[in-house]
């Protein structure tokens, strides 16, 4: 009887395994394969010509160089800002942490073209910052935003919430005693931070940094806005130029460049693995929200002041510019009472059907995507952390690529892959909302996978073993032991998926069909038609909508914490 158990267990695992492999192949391998295939094809069939011509082009190399600068530079900024904010929120006794957290998310949910625009205005020669600088001695000038530095700066600011979100939970889970052990060993606060806290927080930092890395690779809005005037090309804009150039071979060239970009993304994955190689499980802890560094009132005030000025600068600059543009009657008018009206809001909310439809569509899409990613991503993360085999590693690698590809390229790949998955058979997915859903899952699954891997890396195997000798290895092990311990990390991942899916633009802009317009598209359409006032008004509504969702979520989370996790004695 026992013998048959042994066999059945193996059998079951096989099924799950098969389903998993099938899922990955269909959702990830297929589109990527089509893309790679395209990069090797020409009218005459298989060829290396695309590569030779692309690689011989001098501007390709210049573009790659720029891309590396931008990606590495902005990732470093994102990582540093992310760690700093995460540390302050996780460890110090500053007040209003919830509110601070909200302000940290804001740059992530404000559309990046607004952020970019706001920063260029803020930094312009007669903008606010220049006026501020002129008060100081010396002839300081604000940074030129239409430059590499400008792109790096704005991108770093837009991506640091990724690092923050994945790091803050990890920091809270590091047992206090590990740092105390360093402190009794005589190391100062800074040394123990550097030698103990930082390496132990690596799972979060590396995950967040990796996501920031590939997010910068795929980012199109910022380099397009700042790079075109500065004549700075990065891979994402270069690929776009190839596609819209509409020459012969334009797709093939774009595919070839995308493969190069994919290779850079893989390098990111490898760097991440290198970093994580040495990282080992801590003893498992729940999130410890008690502050560890109790600053005196005065010091605390200084830190709070610094932090709040940073937060206000990074959120209020774009937010205010967005708000004021949305309240003005016509673009370019000064922000004075006689020019203020709510007519833009009225138009967006009442007269324009699409805005409301898109809110619904995007919310639905984002929620379904999030739920799906939550389950699949956490499952994959579990396999990845418990059974680190070549297979599960390749899995992680492949899942990361769609997030790094420029949205346009991914959308094209989705069309290739899904219109007729098998030549001659059209399953009728393309042209419906299903294709958006699939594309979103393909694109954003990595966010959840990283979030969940980070969470699992903080769970010591003995925790699970204890559940298993206590007789549970299925639903209850997950529900009562694993989930409660990983939930903060998992929620961080889900939050990222939700927020990015909600305002997704580039993929949707090729894949939507009438009736399935999304928030990003509506904003984009207004913008393209020259109605910036409408687009900002709608953006404001979206931000408000997200804030409300946040509020709701945090209330739900409280309820979950209270009901399900700690006092679930019912079954």
């Amino acid at each position, binding site marked *: 009887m026992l013998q048959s158990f042994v066999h059945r267990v193996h059998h079951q695992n096989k099924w799950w395994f098969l389903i998993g492999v099938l899922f990955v192949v269909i959702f990830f391998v297929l589109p990527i394969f089509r893309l790679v295939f395209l990069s090797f094809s020409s009218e005459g069939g298989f060829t290396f010509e695309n590569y030779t011509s692309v690689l011989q082009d001098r501007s390709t190399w210049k573009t790659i160089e720029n891309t590396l600068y931008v990606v590495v530079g902005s990732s470093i900024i994102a990582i540093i800002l992310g760690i700093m904010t995460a540390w302050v929120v996780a460890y110090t006794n500053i007040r209003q942490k919830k509110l601070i957290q909200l302000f940290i998310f804001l740059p992530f949910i404000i559309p990046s073209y607004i952020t970019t625009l706001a920063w260029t205005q803020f930094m312009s020669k007669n903008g606010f910052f220049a006026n501020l600088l002129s008060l100081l001695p010396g002839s300081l000038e604000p940074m030129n935003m239409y430059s590499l530095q400008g792109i790096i700066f704005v991108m770093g600011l837009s991506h640091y919430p990724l690092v923050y979100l994945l790091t803050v939970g990890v920091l809270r889970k590091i047992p206090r005693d590990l740092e105390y052990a360093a402190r009794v060993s005589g190391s100062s606060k800074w040394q123990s931070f550097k030698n103990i806290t930082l390496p132990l927080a690596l799972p979060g930092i590396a995950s967040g940094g990796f996501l920031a890395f590939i997010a910068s690779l795929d980012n199109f809005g910022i380099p397009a806005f700042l790079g075109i005037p500065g004549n700075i090309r990065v891979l994402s804009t270069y690929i776009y130029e190839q596609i819209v150039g509409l020459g012969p071979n334009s797709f093939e060239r774009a595919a070839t460049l995308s493969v190069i970009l994919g290779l850079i993304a893989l390098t990111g994955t490898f760097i991440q693995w290198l970093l994580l190689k040495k990282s080992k499980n801590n003893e498992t802890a729940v999130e410890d929200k008690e502050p560890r560094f109790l600053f005196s009132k005065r010091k605390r005030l200084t830190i709070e002041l610094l932090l709040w000025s940073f937060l206000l600068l990074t959120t209020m600059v774009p937010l205010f510019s967005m708000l004021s543009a949305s309240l003005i009657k016509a673009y370019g008018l000064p922000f004075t009472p006689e020019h203020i009206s709510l007519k833009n809001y009225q138009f967006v909310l009442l007269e324009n059907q699409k805005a409301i439809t898109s809110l619904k569509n995007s919310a639905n899409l984002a929620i379904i995507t999030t739920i799906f990613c939550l389950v699949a991503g956490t499952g994959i993360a579990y396999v990845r952390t418990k059974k680190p085999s070549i297979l599960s590693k390749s899995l992680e690698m492949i899942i990361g690529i769609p997030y790094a590809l420029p949205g346009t390229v991914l959308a094209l790949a989705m069309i290739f892959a899904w219109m007729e998955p098998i030549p001659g058979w059209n399953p009728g997915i393309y042209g419906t909302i299903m294709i958006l859903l699939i594309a979103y899952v393909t694109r954003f699954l990595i966010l959840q996978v990283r979030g969940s891997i980070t969470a699992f890396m903080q769970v010591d195997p003995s925790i699970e073993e204890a*559940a298993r*000798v*206590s007789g549970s290895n299925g639903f209850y092990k997950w529900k009562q032991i694993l989930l409660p311990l990983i939930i903060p990390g998992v929620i961080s991942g889900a939050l990222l998926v939700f927020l990015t899916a909600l305002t997704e633009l580039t993929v949707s802009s090729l894949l939507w069909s009438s009736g399935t317009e999304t928030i990003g598209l509506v904003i984009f359409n207004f913008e393209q038609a020259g109605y910036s006032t409408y687009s900002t008004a709608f953006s404001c509504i979206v931000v408000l909508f997200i804030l409300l969702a946040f509020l709701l979520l945090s209330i739900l989370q409280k309820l979950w914490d209270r009901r399900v996790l700690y006092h679930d004695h019912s079954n």
Partner: protein
Amino acid sequence: MTTQIKNVEKIFGSFRALQQINLDINEGEFVAILGPSGCGKTTLLRLLAGFDSPTSGEVVMKNQVVADEMSFLPPEKRNIGMVFQSFALWPHMNVRDHIRFPLKHHQFLSEDLKKGMDFRVDEVLKMVDMYHLGERMPSELSGGQKQRVALARAIAPKPALLLMDEPLSSLDAELRMSMRKEIQQLHHLTGASIVYVTHDQSEALAMADKIVVMNKGIIEQVGTPKEIYSSPTSPFVASFVGKANLIQGKWEGTEFYPFHQHAIKWDGTSVTSELRGENIFPARPEQLKISFREGGLKGVITNVQYQGKEIHYTVTIEDEQWVIHQDLDAMFSIGEEVYIHLKESQTRAVKKQLHFV
């Protein structure tokens, strides 16, 4: 539950943590595993639990192979309980929930436990003297209290095989005594087999039906407490369990001439042939006597340690250091020249009580 370990080997990377392990655990038997730090006790226990699979060899439970190189039966299907050396408490659950968890989920739980779950939780909590701390979270417990929770969680569902990895190491003597009693009682009542890892030989001697002495990944000796204590078959067991001084000398039949001194002859009837083969007489500290009476081995007191009810002397004899325990009747000081005798009575007494416990 009968369990057999057959030719088991476990290798971590290039390190051989277990070699050629063969062991039978009978139904209802209390087996203590004794050995120095790092000898492989925990590793062996984890194989029994089903967390790891052996590199080679097999584990058999109830006549069915549950683990070999290829596959293994997962822990939840094995009807076991385990106290982890590192406790492995769930940081998000309070004490009461820790104990309720196996009661809710253990797949071999008896009907009456299923019905009286809350009663059982209270009972076990009282058993480990943690009743008043039921609502505490692990982070709010002291080291010993954590260990007691780990113990309570393991015994609550009355599994057929209880694996305990140093379950009492963080407790004070008093509490340890009472826990020992509870474990023994549980053992008697449920008839569970128990595998009890400890580094404390008095615990092993006091509780076990069978003691397994391990060293460096191999089993040195298996036997009843008495066999292990009085008739060690290897120098390691003699010194590790009995703290015996391993005295070199010459054997002639059952007679022993320490340091080949023909003037002194000790009766070694109870010494095993294995040790005789190695020309060793294992003299436990309390088997020797220090006095000023000539005729024994001559030595010098080099260290004195007060131990409350007795005194531990270190005596240097022919460049070797022997430890001898004396009661408080006579006193010696460092530097004094003394003579060492084998207590006659000891050997006889041991023989006498062999039929006893």
